[in-house]
């Protein structure tokens, strides 16, 4: 079966700066695929090219077996988009937002109206049907944006940082809904810089930096391929001194960040036993996670 979304050697430059640099991507039907990367890595530009909103300088993209941007209009009939920043119509009620948006897909008013109750239920907004958008909370606006992206019953849904700026309750509700969508067989492509989000939701992930894909695989594969399985974080005023004297002896790899030392190890037992004797230091022993992979691949320094 053909991939639902495919990028071959995609390239895009703005003002001499290469934002996306030879990107290959292949996303299968029913998959939840996460695109990770620091700010400015080229995630949003990649999404915009895959949607056919902008043309690549080189390479090509296929969306639902159609070449984009050439056949973007036909492809987008079966695509839903949750943008990074809310762009709901502030003058309209919740239901009017859905009705007006459905018309852009060529749907009849009666068709959209028939879908509105189930969309509102999915977004837990049934009681807000006639509320105006400015009266909604941030989480409700996001859910409405998600419901709006489903108005045309799309096969593929693009989500650009779907939970940025939400509180934990609101995020969990969005995650639950996104999982329900993958269970319905929809294909999801999302960008995020929340590693827990990527780890929970995505079947496969790709890490982007400086416009290039630097690693790809399931969350577990990414951890196994890129990093030692155990992490011991060491804190305390003397942690720096401790690191220079002992860390290399116990850890395969370690990084100092402020007053914390991150030790990456295959077997944590000797290190933990040693640390138990160091009263001036505190430590946390945990399995390696995606955030460790992300920081290893993209570095710890700030990007902006």
């Amino acid at each position, binding site marked *: 079966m053909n991939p639902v979304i495919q990028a071959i050697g995609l390239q895009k430059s*703005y003002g001499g700066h290469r934002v996306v640099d030879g990107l290959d991507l292949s996303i299968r039907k029913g998959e939840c695929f996460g695109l990770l990367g620091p700010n400015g890595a080229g995630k949003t530009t990649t999404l915009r090219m895959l*949607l056919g*909103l*902008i*043309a690549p300088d080189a390479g090509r993209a296929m969306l639902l077996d159609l070449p984009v*941007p050439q056949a973007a*209009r*036909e492809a*987008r*009939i079966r*695509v839903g*988009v949750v*943008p990074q*920043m*809310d*762009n*709901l*119509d*502030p*003058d*309209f009620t919740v239901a*009017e937002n859905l009705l*007006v*948006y459905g*018309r*852009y*897909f*060529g749907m009849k008013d009666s068709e959209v109206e028939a879908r509105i109750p189930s969309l509102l239920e999915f977004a837990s907004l049934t009681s807000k049907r006639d509320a105006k958008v400015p009266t909604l909370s941030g989480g409700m606006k996001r859910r409405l944006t998600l419901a*709006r992206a489903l108005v*045309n019953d799309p096969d593929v849904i693009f989500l650009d940082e779907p939970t940025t700026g939400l509180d934990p309750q609101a995020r969990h509700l969005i995650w639950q809904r996104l999982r329900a969508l993958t269970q319905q067989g929809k294909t999801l492509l999302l960008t995020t810089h929340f590693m827990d989000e990527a780890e929970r939701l995505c079947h496969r992930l790709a890490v982007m930096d400086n416009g290039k894909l630097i690693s790809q695989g399931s969350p577990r594969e990414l951890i196994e391929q890129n990093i030692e399985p155990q992490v011991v974080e060491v804190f305390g005023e003397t942690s720096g001194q401790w690191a220079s004297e002992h860390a290399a002896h116990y850890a395969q790899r370690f990084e100092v960040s402020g007053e914390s030392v991150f030790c990456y190890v295959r077997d944590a037992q000797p290190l933990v036993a040693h640390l138990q004797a160091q009263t001036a230091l505190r430590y946390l022993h945990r399995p390696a996670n995606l955030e460790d992979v992300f920081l290893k691949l993209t570095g710890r320094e700030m990007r902006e």
Partner: protein
Amino acid sequence: MSIFAFPQLSLRFLPIWRRHWLVWKKIAAPSILGHLADPVIYMLGLGYGLGSLLPEMGGMSYMAFLAAGTVCYSTMNSASFEALYSGFARMHEQRTWEAILNTPVGLDDVVLSEILWAATKSLMSGTAVLVVIWVLGLSHSLMSLWMIPLALLIGLAFASIGLIMTALAPAYDFFMYYFTLIITPMMLLCGVFFPVTQLPESMQVVASLLPLTHAIDLARPLMNGDIPPQTLLHIGVLLAYTLVAFYVSLVLFRRRLSR
């Protein structure tokens, strides 16, 4: 697709026009009042004030002279405000365009809908002022009904020209240049308040190039019940402004939104 490609027009603009209409319906009462207050106060204030000093102008009472100009400049204003301020809000502030462009609707449809909607606002404001003029008995001719399609044409021309500014604007402040340097001079030079023939000849040449002059050259005879001289020329100039400005604004929007 090149940014210079021929406009791809379709009926897909219609759902966007209906969106604008639904927004407008919610604020219809203040909006109609806004369409009326400014032009009617100008017309009555200047009409009574100056009119009492001037026995006649261009072969009619000053108030009747002013009436034709008022319809034209208020249609110009409503299309301009809609295309600049409201258009910029939809493109930039509210990101309404971004939401629409994620659907099968294209940018060409969005720009066309903006022009047609701004022209719709012109049609509404022109008609509203016209009704006041009829009620005041300033025009008795059925020919003045032609002012309704003329208001639409004026709206199309100024919406298209205004969208060029919207496509170039970094922020709302930018629009001050357009109103100060383009719209206000047009109001003063194109025959709204006095005949263009009162101007020095060099300024008459400038005025003859401006779209509002041609609108008023059509409007004044129509209000008076006459067939305007050189009708086709004036319509042609307004259409040319519409088509060229539409194309230029489209190219600029394509460039702006391709980033």
